[in-house]
């Protein structure tokens, strides 16, 4: 049960518009790619990360009779923004651009999705913002896409998936982080996979429930990667938002990472503070899903373990089914903390929202 706290002016940092179908994107491709898509029968890039009819993919009352959920601005405005009196919501479009094998095709799709979001979402509701979709397959192309659209202030962050070809701290991704810092945008690392490796370190699972469960360990791995590679030493103004990550795992992970850092810091001398301190300065996590303990007392203890009231930022994860009604803030989070989570923390995370 949530506590039904609604704070006027909340900033929702993770909602998911759906590309209705590949035809909707066609106007945003060049002739070459439009021909490619039709001649080769390129299919829709929906992914197995959110099977269309799986319960988690869309809340029953947010699921349309036909077609994709959250597929047009009117529906999003009514269901996701009006309901929660949201002042601003950030669209993280989970279209499977990162899964493609061809860098060129991915770059074309990324541009098409971004242009579609401008025309169909951002231009239709002034409360909407978006994360830039990039072809993570090639950092040079990714930076080119960032540069192409960054002058539009409604793009407020840059989207990556938590599981890609390489751990996200790896140096080959750094040009993306340089661009993010240059343009005052955090990197939004969202649950999901490019599916270029098994989603677990022990291979492919049997069930969707395992795929979704495995997102959390992947977030642990990527926190390790960003910190150990020294991303935040190189880009001291950069923030990384972990979206749809859950957050209750973070304290235990940082205890472990910090313990090993004490023993192994000679391997990564550029990490000159504890991982716990670095995370508090640079890592933010969206609220939903709340993988909460059974009682509100335990959640209060857990919030104490977090060691900071600035790390969690509000999200509904709309249209994914993480909670019912308007019970988006779990019991155990005080009204004062809820206000920080819903307004102050997002503003401090996204410079472009100030």
């Amino acid at each position: 049960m949530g506590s039904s706290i609604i704070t006027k002016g909340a900033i929702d940092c993770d909602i998911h518009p759906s590309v209705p179908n590949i035809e909707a994107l066609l106007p945003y491709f060049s002739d070459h790619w439009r021909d490619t898509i039709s001649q080769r029968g390129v299919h829709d890039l929906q992914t197995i990360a959110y099977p269309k009819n799986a319960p988690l993919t869309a809340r029953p009352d947010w699921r349309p009779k036909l077609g994709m959920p959250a597929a047009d601005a009117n529906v999003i405005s009514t269901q996701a923004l009006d309901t929660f009196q949201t002042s601003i919501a950030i669209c993280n479009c989970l279209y499977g651009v990162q899964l493609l094998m061809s860098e060129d095709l991915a770059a074309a799709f990324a541009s098409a999705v971004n242009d579609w979001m401008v025309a169909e979402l951002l231009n239709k509701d002034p409360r909407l913002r978006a994360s830039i979709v990039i072809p993570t397959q090639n950092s040079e192309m990714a930076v080119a896409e960032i540069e192409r659209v960054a002058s539009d202030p409604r793009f407020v962050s840059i989207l990556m998936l938590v599981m890609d070809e390489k751990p996200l701290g790896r140096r080959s991704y750094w040009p993306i982080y340089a661009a993010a810092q240059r343009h005052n945008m955090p990197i939004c690392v969202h649950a999901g996979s490019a599916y270029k490796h098994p989603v677990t370190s022990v291979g492919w699972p049997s069930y969707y429930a395992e795929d979704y469960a495995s997102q959390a360990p992947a977030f642990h791995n990527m926190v390790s990667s960003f910190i150990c590679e020294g991303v935040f030493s190189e880009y001291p103004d950069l923030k990384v938002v972990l979206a749809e990550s859950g957050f209750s795992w973070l304290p235990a992970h940082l205890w472990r990472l910090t313990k090993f850092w004490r023993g192994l810091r000679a391997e990564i001398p550029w990490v000159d503070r504890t991982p716990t301190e670095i995370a508090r300065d640079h890592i933010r996590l969206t609220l939903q899903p709340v993988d909460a303990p059974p009682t509100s007392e335990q959640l209060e203890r857990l919030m104490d373990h977090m060691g900071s009231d600035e790390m969690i930022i509000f999200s509904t994860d709309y249209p994914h089914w993480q909670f019912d009604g308007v019970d988006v803030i779990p019991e155990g989070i005080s009204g004062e903390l809820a206000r920080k989570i819903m307004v102050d923390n997002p503003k401090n995370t996204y410079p472009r929202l100030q």
Partner: protein
Amino acid sequence: MNIQVMDRVTTGQKINLAIADCDIHPTPKSVPVEIYPYLSKRWQDYMETYGIIYRQGFPTGPAFPKGQPNAARRDAYPPGGGKPGSDLDFMRSQHLDPNNVQLGILNPLSCGQGVQNLDFSAAYCNAVNHWQIVEWTSKESRLKASLMVPYEDPLASVKEIDLWGGDNNFAQILLLSRTAEPLGQRKYWPIFEAACRANLPVAVHAFGYGGAPVTGGGWPSFYIEEMVGHAENTQSLLTSMVFEGVFERFPTLKLILVEAGFAWLPALSWRLDKLWNRMRAEIPHVTRPPSELIRQHVWLTTQPMEEPEPREHLLDTIEWIGWEKLLFATDYPHWDFDEPSRALPIRIGKEQKEAFFLKNALELYNLN
């Protein structure tokens, strides 16, 4: 419960309490001298010709160089020569006696498990089982062996378990955590069935080479990431065992997670409970909440113990897991050894302390 957080200085006193150490790593002084006697000529020749080939590129060392040579404490090299963990007398004088180890569980690593050639894997595991008895447990009654099985060949594993089942030199069946497929998958079920038949817990120790990258997003750069990542790997294997319904199919199965940390368990349980509620139609064979199954079937060794600041936070975590579910371990002779007198830097009641350091293990292993 009477709990007080102590400074390190005041907790540094020697613990006189007898302890169980549920993770000790023995290693052969010399493979030809100590292991070959239990290998056929064919496999001795194979070893000389090809060596041990794992699912990783280097035949003689890891792709992530360890923090210390052989991942060992600098002071753990026996004065008479040989690798750390290869000399029983030195293990006694350096560890078993001064730390008052009443029960030590031997977990041989790099000893035939996860080897590409399955027949060689089976032969080598069998040899190491003989070796543990001859060189260790028959000479030192405080030590118990782990029944090594070539887990990527479950039928050969069952054969090995049935061969030794009932031999009280063995306290548990040992697997490594980085298997080729998620451990709950049906390929591995015969091992769990045989374990229940032999009435032995299944211990899964961090490490190994399963072939998949150590993260779902590829290979990291650093040893620290691999080490920390054992916790994530172990969460994935536990998730698989829960959602495949292993604990319901094998209701007497006991699972011990070794050297993968423990503080992550509450958050994982909460996440799995939530997903189970939402997705029960996909996994109808899981009829009870994951947190209940875990509480009933899973134990964890303590080393490397998480060290939050402030330390009281660890008490919350241990209560959420259950004090009865933790088994003390040092990881002797490895570099990240948890010293018994300093490992738990919080003062707890006498009864709890005895359970944590000894009785939980005696009870689990039926050694009361």
